[in-house]
């Protein structure tokens, strides 16, 4: 180990494959559509990680799109109507 920069301190216990698999299966519950029937754990971990990354990217894009949509909507609302005044006063 000499000369090599290790990411963890020597006091941290080694992460077991089981722990990774357990946490990855928790990620499962958040992913809207992943039908995983593969037996291989590494393959399923890979699939779940991939779906997770895609899902996060989609959520990021949605936040961006919604921000843009809201910006357009809020600027086009006529400030004279009373209901619009409520929404308009938000921003």
């Amino acid at each position, binding site marked *: 180990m000499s000369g090599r920069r290790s990411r963890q301190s020597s006091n941290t216990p080694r*992460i077991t494959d089981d722990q990774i698999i357990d946490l990855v299966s928790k990620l499962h519950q958040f992913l809207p559509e992943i039908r995983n029937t593969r037996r291989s754990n590494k393959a399923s971990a890979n699939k779940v990680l991939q779906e997770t990354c895609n899902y996060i990217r989609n959520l990021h894009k949605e936040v961006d799109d919604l921000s843009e949509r809201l910006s357009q909507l809020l600027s086009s609302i006529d400030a004279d109507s009373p209901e619009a005044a409520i929404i308009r006063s938000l921003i």
Partner: protein
Amino acid sequence: MKARMQMSSSVVKQEFFKKWIKGMQIYSAFNKEMTIMERKRAIKLSADVAIASTRSATTQWSRAVVADVSTSAAGAARAAAEEILGRKLPERKALATTCSKKIVRRSHQRRSKAAARGVVRSSAAIAKKLVRNRTRVLKRLVPGGKKLDEISLIKETLDYIACLQVQVDVMRHLAAAAESLDHQQISF
């Protein structure tokens, strides 16, 4: 990690919504006539700081979001963030990331040299490599993920995704409300 994960999501939604609105109002106070792009930025930054603030620094990702805003935001953005967080942000510091970028670049070069040597890998090794690459991508997607070990990264990811879902849900509802208002006005 604390039991905040079990907290009712509607409570989190309300907290997020209030803070988000507060942030946007600060922007409006700075600038009455924003362009669409400026308003979009106001909406997005307020939303990002607001959702991070619902975790009140108990997670790495929320701390990373706040740290990022601390270094890059100025003027209305900074004021909005401070209002949402309820405290002053630390002074802006120069980013010290150039050093770590070089290290990452060097280690990347090391990996491709192994491939250039024509090393034949077993399928298990390939699977392991795929997982490692995907983990690297995930580290980039989750704020503050780069310095986390695998276990912490996945825990952070779980929390981060839950919060992103809250953020998107509330934003969708406001957009739907604003949109139905828009349609009502057209029909009159």
